């Protein structure tokens, strides 16, 4: 196990992995943006897939770097980078990242990607609702809470099931996980 906190130097295999996962989250942000949604406020959260897969692949420093890059990518794609709306994305993503990484560290293999994903998605949406009540909508935000949290549960569950199946069958992922354990 090498240095757990620093961002890896370019060229090192972990840096390539971080670059790949970042690119994947950019790409998935764009895909998410293109998919028509039944409700405009719905989000699928598929751009979180790299973060979910990365709990076993990256140490905490690069993992948080991936979270930051995901926020940047998402804000670039949706055009909210220099508005305060990006603050919601930032808070939600970092909360999800910390919760997911924490759950993996705490529970190890006793929780699969399904549980990790649900915790991440719901906590991300919960933080955004709290932020919405503090920054913009005040008490009215309590009305959006049930919908938002239920959405997080549903999309988190779906993404978790996908990630768990992907992890079980992907050789690339198996190899990356081997490498990560060093």
């Amino acid at each position: 196990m090498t240095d757990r906190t620093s961002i890896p130097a370019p060229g090192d295999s972990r840096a390539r992995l971080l670059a790949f996962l970042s690119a994947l989250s950019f790409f998935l942000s764009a895909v998410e943006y293109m998919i028509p949604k039944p409700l405009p406020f719905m989000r699928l959260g598929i751009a979180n897939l790299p973060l979910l897969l990365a709990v076993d692949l990256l140490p905490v420093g690069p993992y948080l770097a991936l979270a930051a890059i995901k926020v940047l990518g998402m804000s670039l794609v949706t055009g909210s980078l220099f508005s305060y709306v990006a603050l919601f994305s930032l808070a939600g993503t970092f909360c999800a990242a910390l919760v997911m990484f924490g759950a993996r560290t705490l529970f190890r293999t006793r929780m699969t990607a399904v549980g990790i994903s649900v915790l991440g998605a719901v906590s991300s949406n919960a933080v955004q609702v709290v932020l919405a009540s503090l920054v913009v909508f005040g008490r009215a935000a309590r009305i959006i809470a049930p919908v938002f949290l239920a959405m997080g549960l549903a999309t988190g569950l779906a993404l978790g099931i996908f990630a768990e199946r992907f992890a079980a069958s992907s050789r690339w992922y198996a190899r990356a996980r081997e490498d990560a354990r060093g």
Partner: protein
Amino acid sequence: MGAAAENGGTRGSGPEAPTEPPAAKPGKLRLTFLDAAAVLAAASLVFLSSLGAVDAAGEPRVVIADAKGQEWIYPLDTDLEVPIEGPLGISTVHIHDGRVAIESSPCPNQTCVAAGSIDRPGQWVACLPNQVFVRVEGGTDDGSDVDTGTW
């Protein structure tokens, strides 16, 4: 979807197959107790948050909140156009035929306009960039003349 490296032909468990977790077979999902606990916790959070979220008593009405935290209340059954001042400019809220919608907005993403019109208590339309929040309250407590609009 999935990473490009995934299409490696047949998926037999090679020598480098994952050995660590309770090695689930590909395609079979094996959930743990903590997975169930996480889902249950999330579900109960959803349930708790829905308690008392909506003030459903009284006449059906439109409540509009603006960037300054002020709220305006209008009856849902009177057609009206309400301009709401936000940080980006004027958002127009239109009450028409017992439904309410954000008709125009100066925001870049137009999510609020795309959300369309709402008419039932608990429904809401929000514009995050221009900080306008429109919701419908009331209208469910009197079972006698429910939803006259649908008859």
